[in-house]
C-alpha cells in the first residue's frame, strides 16, 4: 500500500479486482480509500445480495486492535455494552459515548482471543482511544491497512463458502467467528454484516487478498456472485434498519453545534447500554437521561406511497416534530421506509405522523404530505439471517 503522502487516495488490497469489475467507474472516497459506489447498476447489485451473493470490499473500515491484560476492562469502560459477556470468537455490535453520554460512533467488537480484541469503527478515533487508555495496561494498534476484508452477503453465501472448502461454515452462528486455512495463510470468517441477510465477513492478510477474491468469485460463479458498491449497500441497510454514522447521527466529536449529537437512547439503541457493569464513558449522563427522559426518539417509519421521504420534515398535525435522516423504497420488503429523528413523545410504535416529501419529475416539483406510521424496526428480517445451520440456496 502506498503511504498517504504519495497519493491523494489509497487503494484497497482488492483494488485490482474491483477495478476490473467496475464497469461504470463510479468511485467514491471512503476514509481515504477509493471505494466503488456502484459497479454496474445499483438495482442489480442490491438484488444480488437479496437473491444470490454480493461482495462488498470493506477493507477501508477503520480497525483497531487491543491487546494486553486490561484489554477487556479497557473496552468495557470505552463502550456502553457489557464486554465481559462477549465470549472468545464472538462479535458484538455496540456504540461508544463521550462523558456526556453522546454517541461518538458505532461499530463491532471482535473477541479474537483471550485479551485480544478488534474494534471496527466508522470514524478514526485513535486520539480518544489513547486518552481512554490512561490507567489501563493495553496496547492499541490501528490495523486498518493491515487487514483486508470483504463482506460476502446473501442467501447463497454459505453455499459459496462450502464450495471453497470451508467445511462446517454452515454451523457458524450469527456473530460467531471461525478460522480456515487458505493457501498457507488463515482466513477469519465472521457471521456478521450490514445487510440483514444471511452473510459473512472475511478478514485476511492483504497479501492473500487477490487470490482469495479470485477463488471466491470462481466458486460463486454459478451462484450469481457479484461485486456490490456502497449505493446498493445503503438500500440494504435501510431495509434492515441499520443506522449509518454520519448520516443517521453526527458523531459527538464531529458535532460543532451544541445539541446536534445524540445519546444511544435517542437513536433507539438503548438496548446496547448496560448499567450492570463497572463505570463506562457516559454512564452518569445516560443514567440521568434514563431517569429524566430523552430529548429525541429515533423512529422507523412506514411511509404511505412510493416516494422516498428523503430529507422530509415530519409533522404531527400541523406541528413540526422531526426530520428524516434516511429514506428508501425497499424493493424486497415492498415498503417505503424512512428513519427519522423526532421529539421524544412522538416515538411510540403506532404513532401516526405526516412526512412532507418533495420530489421532482422533469423540473416539476411536487409536494406530498404522506401519512406515516412508526413501526417496530426492520421491514426485512428473514429467518435465514439467524438460522443455524445456515440454509443452502
Amino acid at each position, binding site marked *: 500500500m502506498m503511504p498517504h503522502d504519495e497519493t491523494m487516495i489509497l487503494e484497497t488490497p482488492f483494488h485490482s479486482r474491483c477495478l476490473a469489475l467496475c464497469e461504470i467507474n463510479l468511485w467514491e472516497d471512503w476514509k481515504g480509500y477509493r471505494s466503488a459506489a456502484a459497479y454496474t447498476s445499483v438495482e442489480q447489485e442490491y438484488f444480488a445480495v437479496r437473491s444470490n451473493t454480493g461482495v462488498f470490499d470493506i477493507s477501508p473500515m477503520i480497525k483497531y486492535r487491543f491487546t494486553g491484560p*486490561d484489554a477487556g*476492562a*479497557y473496552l468495557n*469502560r*470505552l463502550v456502553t455494552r457489557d464486554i465481559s459477556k462477549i465470549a472468545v470468537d464472538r462479535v458484538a455490535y455496540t456504540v461508544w459515548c*463521550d*462523558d*456526556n453520554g453522546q454517541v461518538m460512533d458505532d461499530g463491532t467488537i471482535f473477541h479474537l482471543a483471550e485479551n485480544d480484541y478488534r474494534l471496527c469503527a466508522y470514524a478514526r478515533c485513535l486520539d*480518544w482511544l489513547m*486518552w*481512554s487508555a*490512561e*490507567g*489501563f495496561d493495553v496496547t492499541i494498534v490501528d490495523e486498518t491497512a493491515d487487514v483486508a476484508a470483504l463482506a460476502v452477503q446473501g442467501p447463497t453465501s454459505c453455499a459459496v463458502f462450502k464450495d471453497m472448502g470451508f467445511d462446517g461454515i454452515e454451523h457458524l452462528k450469527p456473530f460467531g467467528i471461525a478460522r480456515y486455512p487458505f493457501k498457507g495463510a488463515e482466513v477469519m470468517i465472521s457471521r456478521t454484516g450490514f445487510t440483514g441477510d444471511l452473510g459473512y465477513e472475511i478478514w485476511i492478510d492483504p497479501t492473500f487478498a487477490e487470490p482469495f477474491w479470485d477463488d471466491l468469485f470462481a466458486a460463486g460463479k454459478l451462484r450469481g456472485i457479484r461485486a456490490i458498491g456502497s449505493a446498493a449497500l445503503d438500500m440494504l441497510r435501510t431495509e434492515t434498519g441499520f443506522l449509518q454514522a454520519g448520516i443517521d447521527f453526527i458523531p459527538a466529536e464531529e458535532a460543532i453545534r451544541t445539541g446536534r449529537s445524540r445519546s444511544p437512547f435517542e437513536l433507539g439503541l438503548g438496548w446496547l447500554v448496560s448499567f450492570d457493569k*463497572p*463505570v*463506562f*464513558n*457516559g*454512564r*452518569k449522563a445516560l443514567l440521568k437521561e434514563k431517569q429524566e427522559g430523552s430529548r429525541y426518539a429515533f423512529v422507523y417509519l412506514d411511509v404511505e406511497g412510493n416516494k422516498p421521504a428523503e430529507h422530509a420534515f415530519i409533522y404531527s398535525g400541523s406541528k413540526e416534530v422531526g426530520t428524516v435522516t434516511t429514506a428508501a423504497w425497499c424493493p424486497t420488503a415492498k415498503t417505503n421506509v424512512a428513519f427519522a429523528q423526532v421529539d421524544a413523545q412522538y416515538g411510540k410504535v403506532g404513532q401516526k405522523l405526516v412526512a412532507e416529501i418533495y420530489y421532482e419529475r422533469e423540473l416539476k416539483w411536487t409536494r406530498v404530505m404522506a401519512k406515516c406510521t412508526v413501526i417496530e424496526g426492520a421491514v426485512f428480517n428473514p429467518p435465514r439471517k439467524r438460522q443455524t445451520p445456515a440454509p443452502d440456496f
Partner: protein
Amino acid sequence: MINVDKHYDVIVVGGGHNGLVCATYLAKDGRNVLVLEANDALGGASATAEFSDQFSVSSCAHWLFQLNPKVASELDLTKHGLALAAENLCTIALAEDGNHLTIDGDKLEGENISEEDRKAFVAFNHQISKFCKVLAAAFNRRAPKLVEGNFTDRITLAKLGFGMKMLGKEDMSDLMRLALINIYDVMEENFENDLLKGAISLDSLLGSHMGPRSPNTVYGYIYRRMGAIFGFQGPAVVQGGMGAVGKAMAAAAAASGVDIEVDAAVSKINIDVDRATGVTLRDGRVVNASLVVSNADPKTTFNNLVGLSNIETGVARRVKTMRMKGDTAKLHIALDGLPNFTGLTEQQMGQRLVIAPTMNYVENAFNPSKYGEYSTEPAMDISIPSIHDTNLAPSGKHVMSVIVQYAPYDLTGGWTEENKGAFTELVIDRLADFAPDLKDKIVASELLTPVDIEQRFHIHGGHWHHGEISLDQILMMRPFPGASQYGTAVGGLYLCGAGNHPGGGVMGLAGHNAAKEIIKRGTSA
C-alpha cells in the same frame, strides 16, 4: 484514632491544613468525621521537621502570610496554640554589593531609589490591593459555574462583575490588560529599580514553573498579595515552625469531635460503580463512610486513589493535562552561629531575604529548568526563623530555610545523590556571595527537591500549590472544568485541597469552601 464502633459520615483523606479545616467545619455541622493522615504529623505542607540533631525547620511552606482570618477565628486557632514569633516582616532584596533594598509595606528603603519609584510603588500597591478586594469576593465561596443559572453562582458572578465595575474605567481596563500580560512588562511599565522589579517578579512566580516573562505571573502576584486582604502586612514566622499551624488545626478538629489517625496511609478510595463508599488503608483495613473528601491533590486523588480506569475518559484526560510540575526546591541549613550577610544587621537578617537582583537574573534562572536542568544561579527566598524562635535550634545556633527557584521535578538524569549534592553546593556558593562566612557555620544541610517534596508530602510533581495557579486553572477551571465545585465525577467524593478554588498557600479557604459546599448539598451530597 479510628473508632471501629462509629459509622463515619465523612472520611477526609489527608490531614493537611485544608483537610483539617474541612473536617472541623463538617464536625461542627454535626457529622462524624475521620481524618486519615499518611505521615506522623498533621498539617501537610504546613510542617515542621527536625532535619539534623536538634535543628528543626518549616520543611515546606516557611512563611505564614495568607491564613484566612475567618477560618483562623472560627477554628479558634489562637486558643488551640497558634502563636506568631514575628509578623509583618519586611522583604529585603539583597544586592551583592550590600546596597540592599528594603520593602516595608508601601515604603522603600535603600540607596539609589528614585522619588518616581517611591511614588509609583505606593500607587502600584494601591491598585493591586483594589484588584485583591475584587477577587476576595470570590475567594471564600465556591467558584461559580458559568453555564448553569444557579442563584448562588449568579451572586458570586455578580459580585465579581460589580467589583470590577466599581474599580472604575481605568482600573478595570488595567485589570483586564494586566491579568493577561506578564509581570516583567508590568514592572517595566512602573519602576526603574532593578532590585524592586526583581523582588516583585519573584513574588509573582514562587512555587510555579514560570519566569517573569511567563503569562499568568501577574495573577500569581495578585494571588500572593491576597494576604494583605487577610490582614498580613508582610510574612509572619510561626512559633514552632509551620507545623504549629497543623497542630493548632488538629487541636481544633479534635475539639470539634473529629477522629484523627496519623501513620494511616490510604491506598485506595473504594468505589461501588460510581459512588465512593470509603477507603482502604495501606495496612488493609477498610473504613466505610457516606462521603469521602480528598485533601490529596487532584492528580494523586484520581491517578492513585481512585484510579483513572474508574472514571470516564473525559475526566481522565482533564486529570492528565492538568499542569502541576514542581520547579521549586527547599534547602535547610543548620548553622553553628548566625552568618554575616554583607550590609545586614541581625534584626534585618530576621526579615524575609530574597535573591532576585534583576528580572533577567530570575528569567535566566528559569531558562535551564525548561529543558530539565536546574538553575546555576538560582533565585531564592530566605528565612532564618531561629532569630525569632529560639526553640528551633540549640542555644546560639540557627537554622536557615531557603526556597530555591528553579529545580525541575523531571531533572535530566534524575535527582540522584550526586545531582542533589552538586545543586546544594551551588546554592550554598550563591548564598555565600551574600554571606561570605556562611560556609564556616554550616553544621548540616538538607535539600528537598520536588521529587522529595512529592514523596514526603504526597504531592504529585512536588508542586506546592497542588497545580499551577494560572488563569486556565483558577476559579471554575480549578482543578479542571467539570470538577470545579469541590464535587467530582464520582458520587460522594469531594476534593478539599489546594488544587481547588481558590488555590494553594496556607490559607485554609479550599477546605473551608469544600465543607460549606458539602453542608449546603446536605443529603444530596
